[in-house]
């Protein structure tokens, strides 16, 4: 694979509008790109023989509400080239007002559930996803819990259920009706 500065030149030429920058931390390159261009970038990384990242290892997201970033949310793709055992990270940045970006489902089927998970936990929408609905939380859940403005203990979702009492008798000696 190309080194960092050459990769920057190639990608800047190929994606003049979408490309933001490439950063490096502990030997791992991260390509930053604007959300709407991510599918084109992923397709290039998958099909171009210079990159040949044939395996999508994971999709997740980070909410940058309390941390510096290019926008509020970044959707993170971990790609793997299995021939050379090389990895790269793609970060697609989406704004809070319209958290929407194209789905990677046409390239890798594993994107299906992982994008549903990102949608459920962060509220980032994926266009052209075959079946975008909540996966972890129940359908009636109102919030997106992994956003930074949602409290750890929740907003009372866990306290509101039907209470069942013993229907006949009582089994503990301390309770009424047992000698």
């Amino acid at each position, binding site marked *: 694979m190309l080194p960092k500065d050459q990769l920057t030149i190639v990608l800047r030429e190929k994606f003049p509008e979408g490309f933001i920058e490439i950063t490096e931390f*502990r030997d*791992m390159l991260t390509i930053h790109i604007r959300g709407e261009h991510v599918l084109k970038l992923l397709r290039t990384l998958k099909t171009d023989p210079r990159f040949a990242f044939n395996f999508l290892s994971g999709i997740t997201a980070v909410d940058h509400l309390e941390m510096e970033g290019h926008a509020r949310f970044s959707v993170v793709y*971990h790609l793997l080239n299995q021939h050379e055992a090389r990895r790269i990270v793609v970060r697609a940045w989406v704004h809070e007002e319209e958290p929407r970006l194209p789905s990677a489902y046409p390239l*890798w*089927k594993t994107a299906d*559930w992982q994008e549903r998970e990102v949608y459920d936990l962060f509220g980032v929408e994926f266009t052209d996803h075959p079946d975008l609905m909540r*996966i972890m939380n129940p359908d009636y859940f109102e919030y997106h819990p992994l956003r930074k403005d949602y409290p750890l203990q929740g907003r009372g979702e866990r306290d509101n259920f039907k209470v069942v009492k013993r229907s006949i008798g009582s089994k503990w000696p301390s309770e009424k009706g047992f000698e």
Partner: protein
Amino acid sequence: MTLEAKALSTEKMVLNFGPSHPATHGTLRVIVELDGELVTKAVPEIGFLHCGFEKLGEHLDFNQFVTVTDRMNYISPLCNNVAYALSAEKLLDIKVPKRAQYIRVLMCELSRIADHLVQIGMQAVDIGAFTVFLYGFRLREKIYDLFEMVCGARLTTSYTRVGGLMRDLPENSIPVVYDLLDRLPATLKEIDGLLTHNRIWLDRTRGIGPISHDEALSYGLTGPLARAAGVDYDLRVKEPYSSYEDFDFDVIIGQNGDVYDRYIVRMYEMWESQKICRQVMDNLPGGPVNVDADSKYILPPRPEVFNSIEGLIHHFMVTMENRGFTPPVGEAYVPTESPNGELGYFIVSDGSREPYRVRTRPPSLINYSAFPRMMENMMVSDAVAILGSLNVIAGELDR
């Protein structure tokens, strides 16, 4: 009177498995659409065990979260401990001593044996053979005993710390490890004798739920499932971590990607794990199991804390709320080969003592997402066999 050959018209039927069903290993729900006995569509519903692990990770510091990783994959908790510690260490740029790396390898491989024993046992129970489970569990109890000796707990081990291990292998555990490794072949042969050439087992598993090489890659399958489909990728060999490059072992590759091949891959992997364990024990280097105590990543030894003011201050510096070590702003992801496949923690740090974001790459979730594909054109009774072969662990699936 003539009988007309007329296709029997059937209506499609929708059947609901779970979420509380003996074959669903915890809390899975599958809605299957049937045409007679043929499955035309299977839709899994998950999230019944979603506990907010990742949210919790943002509120616990690096060493506290190790205890929570146990609860994520409760069949092989040590692999999760190690995966988290590796990511945190990469973020902090620490290199742990060789002895700690070797002990981690030993523990991971024993966990792999324990995991595969339970997986094969439970799959056999689902298909109708109870004996394998009992035979496998007999050895698993021995492994539990060893874990208890080393970590103090049978299941929730919490053995790793950022920068090393909770403690060294106790002296008396070394003969126990050898004893365990000596007993393993007998158990494996027993299971082998019960299942590998068993007519019923073959009929129930061969050709069931096949998945091709390319589809395995597209669905992101890793671990025994991918290797059964012929994907030659083992992270221990291709991207070695924790000194795996020092050991000599083979990667088991299947051909057909069906349930039987997955079983065979797992069976032979246990033999390979046993080989690795022996190599670790024979070449175990001496020295400390933690990074240098002056680096402020690890707690000082107990007597020092109780008997000297420096030790006490050191202890406070690591554990107190507004102290502790802080990584630089950045992110790290170290993939490891857990018994189910690629497991790694993606940690984003904003420079404070708690991670900003922790994400697990859950092999169970990603492997399970290929379940609808595997169920195509299978019988309803095969659902149980396929589900068993995926070894879906609900804690890791839903997090």
